[in-house]
């Protein structure tokens, strides 16, 4: 099934959840409302025509004026894929977790939290995964400033103009 057909199915099932569809470029995607993402994902996984059984990737993106979470889904049975996006406010990035839908989301969401500070509601174990528990700040945010010290150790600065 083509991505555009999947979008149509989502639109007919959840007319309010669908915010915009992007059919341009290499990758077609659909933007889903924050509150209904878990429901839409559950529908995409369980509907017999779609059966998106595997979550290939879940990534956070910081656009300076907003945050985004991108879901790449794939169906092993029907061999089709789809890309979903959720837009979040930068001050309070918060959305429902999909770890109840795919267990694979568990670590991906922890990573997005670790790097961007995106909070996933109802996540069974939301804590830092790659960085130490007492690390301050969220490094992959565009405005992240490296701290001068961590536990008394000086963090080396990158030289000006170094490329």
């Amino acid at each position, binding site marked *: 099934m083509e991505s555009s057909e999947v979008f149509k199915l989502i639109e007919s099932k959840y007319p309010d959840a669908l915010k915009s569809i992007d059919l341009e470029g290499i*990758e077609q995607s659909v933007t889903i409302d924050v509150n209904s993402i878990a429901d839409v994902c559950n529908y995409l996984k369980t509907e017999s025509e779609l059966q998106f059984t595997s979550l290939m*990737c879940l990534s956070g993106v910081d656009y300076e004026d907003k945050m985004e979470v991108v879901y790449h889904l794939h169906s*092993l049975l029907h061999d089709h894929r789809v890309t979903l996006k959720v837009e979040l406010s930068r001050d309070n990035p918060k959305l429902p977790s999909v770890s109840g839908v795919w267990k694979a989301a568990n670590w991906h969401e922890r990573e997005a939290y670790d790097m961007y500070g995106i909070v996933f509601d109802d996540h069974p174990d939301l804590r830092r995964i790659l960085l130490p528990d007492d690390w301050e700040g969220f490094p992959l945010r565009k405005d992240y400033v490296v701290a001068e010290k961590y536990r008394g150790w000086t963090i080396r600065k990158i030289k000006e103009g170094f490329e």
Partner: protein
Amino acid sequence: MPDLKTEEMVVQMGPQHPATHGVLRLEITTDGEIVRKINPHIGYLHRCFEKHCEELNYHQIIPFVDRCDYLAAMNNEHGYVMAVEKLLDIEIPERVEYIRVIMSELNRIASHLVALGTYGLDIGAITPFLFTFRDREKILDLFEMTSGARLLYNYIWIGGVAFDLPNGFVEKCFEFIDYFLPKLKEYDDLLSYNKIFIKRTAEVAIIPPAVAIEWGITGPNLRASGVDWDLRRDEPYSIYDKFEWDVIVADGRVGVLGDSWSRYYVRVLEMEQSASIVKQALEGLPSDENVKSAVPKKVRPKEGSVFFRSENPRGELGYYIISDGSDIPYRLKMRSPAFCNLSAISDVGEGLLISDLVSLLGSIDIVLGEIDR
């Protein structure tokens, strides 16, 4: 004895432990010999790969990609450059594609050889490790001949490869394939069908196919659970559709489907297929084309994003690249296969004996460099 009671004990396995293949720490709650709960702690090797990528141009990222999965650097490079080429929408000379496939498949064999050897070590068999490393050395010699490096190559470039194959490479590579194929029998005799090895691995730590898909397990581990899926065949990239080869799916000939032995043996059989692909690619190698003709001077993709995945020795390696039209990626996310494979361990490992946990961990074949990035 009514007063006798047992208590659960927390044991830290790692970060310095021979069976954790690097710096992984498993916080295990044990009840006697039985593992009740596993809490994996990763991140000891975190080097901010994705943050670095937002400061470097597309060419400069290639050496960083090497260092993520240092046992399969060629495969990592191959996946990355294909993602960028898809973003740029450029055509690649055919000779380059052939060289890339030869390198990737040789690297797959080398990576599986490490997996086999170290798995033997985990279980307690030291000799197979020496045998597999003896053969891996020959592949590294071939890589040294072409790229000058033995582990981190920076060989596959966007639009081409760094150097053409040196004189005598094709003959030497044929020689290696002829040398290598009979060696597979040797591994079988030495390890695969060894009685002790089978006792330690068959019917141990079974991952059913539904669980494997749910946790995003990919690659040989998924095929060991009986799921017939390989990106090289099912979403053919590069020139994989030109070769004849079989996707190896475990059949449970020893033990059951999805156990540690199946995960191990899928790799043994995959090496044979990889060798066959290398042989076919060498035979069909087009001659006399400039391998750098399509290398762009400046990589400036149009605005947009791409998600591209390829089959790594450990599973599906995905790159999600967002371009804002400049020569530096706005965002680069690496979907690392070992990261997803390892995440299942807290589910699958529950209820195993501690010694079986080692058997499970070794059979998943993790590389911490790629998990922590």
